[in-house]
């Protein structure tokens, strides 16, 4: 059908903002992971007793076989490799940094699954897949994965 662009005199658009204070339980698994980052500067994962997969970040169940994982904690390395990356070249309110910044998937030593995080301390043009990086822990806790502030390249 043809769009009818009606007379728009005296039409107004109401600006709004959805502000909704909420609380959200990190879960016992998530709490332990974050407390370990915050207090011990250690990255924890969980290993599936059925399929041996080491998950990072940790979770309560294995999505493949639904085995319980929360008794099978594994201490992972604070270093790892970049398995994939993108350079965020746009700015927006939900982004933690000003563009451009590197958002990468990082597989820390001992984990089977990489997880997303920020890579700093390097020009975005210089990042490569396979690059070795290490966690830099945040000075102030936010009780999220940002208790690792970002990863930086390991310089041999």
């Amino acid at each position, binding site marked *: *059908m*043809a*769009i*009818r*662009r*009606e007379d*728009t005199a005296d*039409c107004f*658009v109401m600006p*709004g903002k*959805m502000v909704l204070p909420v609380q*959200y339980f*990190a879960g016992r698994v*998530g709490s332990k992971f*974050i407390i370990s980052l915050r207090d011990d500067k250690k990255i924890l994962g969980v290993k599936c007793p059925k399929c041996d997969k080491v*998950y*990072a*970040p940790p979770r309560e169940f294995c*999505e493949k076989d639904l085995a319980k994982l929360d008794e099978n904690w594994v201490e992972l390395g604070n270093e790892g490799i970049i*398995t*994939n*990356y*993108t*350079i*965020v*070249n*746009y700015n*927006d*309110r*939900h*982004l*933690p*940094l000003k563009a451009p910044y590197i*958002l990468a*998937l990082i*597989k820390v030593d001992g984990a089977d*699954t*990489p*997880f*997303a*995080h*920020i890579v700093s301390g390097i020009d*975005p043009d210089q990042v490569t897949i396979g690059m070795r990086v290490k966690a830099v822990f945040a000075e102030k806790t*936010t*009780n*999220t*994965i*940002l208790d690792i502030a970002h990863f930086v390249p390991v310089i041999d």
Partner: protein
Amino acid sequence: MKRVAICAVAQHRIESDIWYKRFQGMLLDVLEDLQKQTGFTFGENGVFDIVSCSDDFFDARTISNNGVCDAIGGHYRGEDKMAQEGLNGIGYAMALILSGHDDLVYLPGHCKESQAESRNMNANLAYDPFYCRCLGLDYLNAAGLQARAYMQKAKITEEQLAKIVVRARQWAARNPYANETKQLEIGDVMYSPMLCDPIRTLHAYPVSDGAVGLLLASEERAYEFTDNPVWITGFGNCMDSYFLGDRDLSVSFALKKAAAQAYKMAGITSPAKKVDLVELMDCYAYQQPMWLEGLGLCEDGQGGRFLDENGPARYNVNLSGGMLTGRPLMIGGLYGAAEAVLQLKGQAGEHQASDVNCAVVHSTTGGAGQFQTVLVLER
């Protein structure tokens, strides 16, 4: 098996900022168009069950269907909301009819992406607060990660991506409902600013507002509303892992599963031989060959070669212009279904393909194609 028909479709023209029209008004136009085409009514012997599709965050109110029920005939009768991309509403409506619960279903969907200051900010809220949201993950940067993984695997070049966008705009120009029809040269796309490396600005679909509606009926009742019904012969969907790092982003596991389910239902053993036309939800240019791999129309990891061999033209992919020229996120697949129905009915006007007997419609939601849906339509 009993068959379910799509009798008719109505599309509202897509634009990037329909600020001067409420989505309720857009839906009313769609309804009036569809009633004019088919003569369907509500009430006695008419539609009793409505499956609507909308999104709380884009509408900025929860239970978003509550805001449109009057405009879709949803007061005084049955109404269910599909809180997922609209193609899944077709699967649900099909199940309502196949189960014998009802024999006639009206399926409207709407989404005004422009109501959000930033659709990326909306997508960020789809992520958990501890591991992903705080990193700024959204559907664009998740796609950026997938684009790198897939392009490397399937050997996709910048020039090939540019050609996909140029072709999409050429087809969109023939579609009266399409959003972005400005014609482009390959160089315009190749040198458009980097948005989320390797995704460039012109590789991404424009912000889009729209509304679309379909009338579904049992085989017994379909001919009351149309002389040439289109039959739903296959439907399938599949959810992949949530964490991007849990997945091989270069392959669409979920789409392969969804397609296998849909093809099995349709009795299709060789989609490459059977499928005449495809409507894909390609939000970013790299997704066009990637989803075609998932649908089994292009060999695994051969997207680059497939593009050089004009695969998208061979399968009549997105003759409407597709998602790349602008469709709203939550109804991208529903618009694709409407276009495929027009093609199968021979009513697609200037972008009509010849001899279309079997069409495949695809949609996706979630980061980097986490959730995938496939619909098979035949005439």
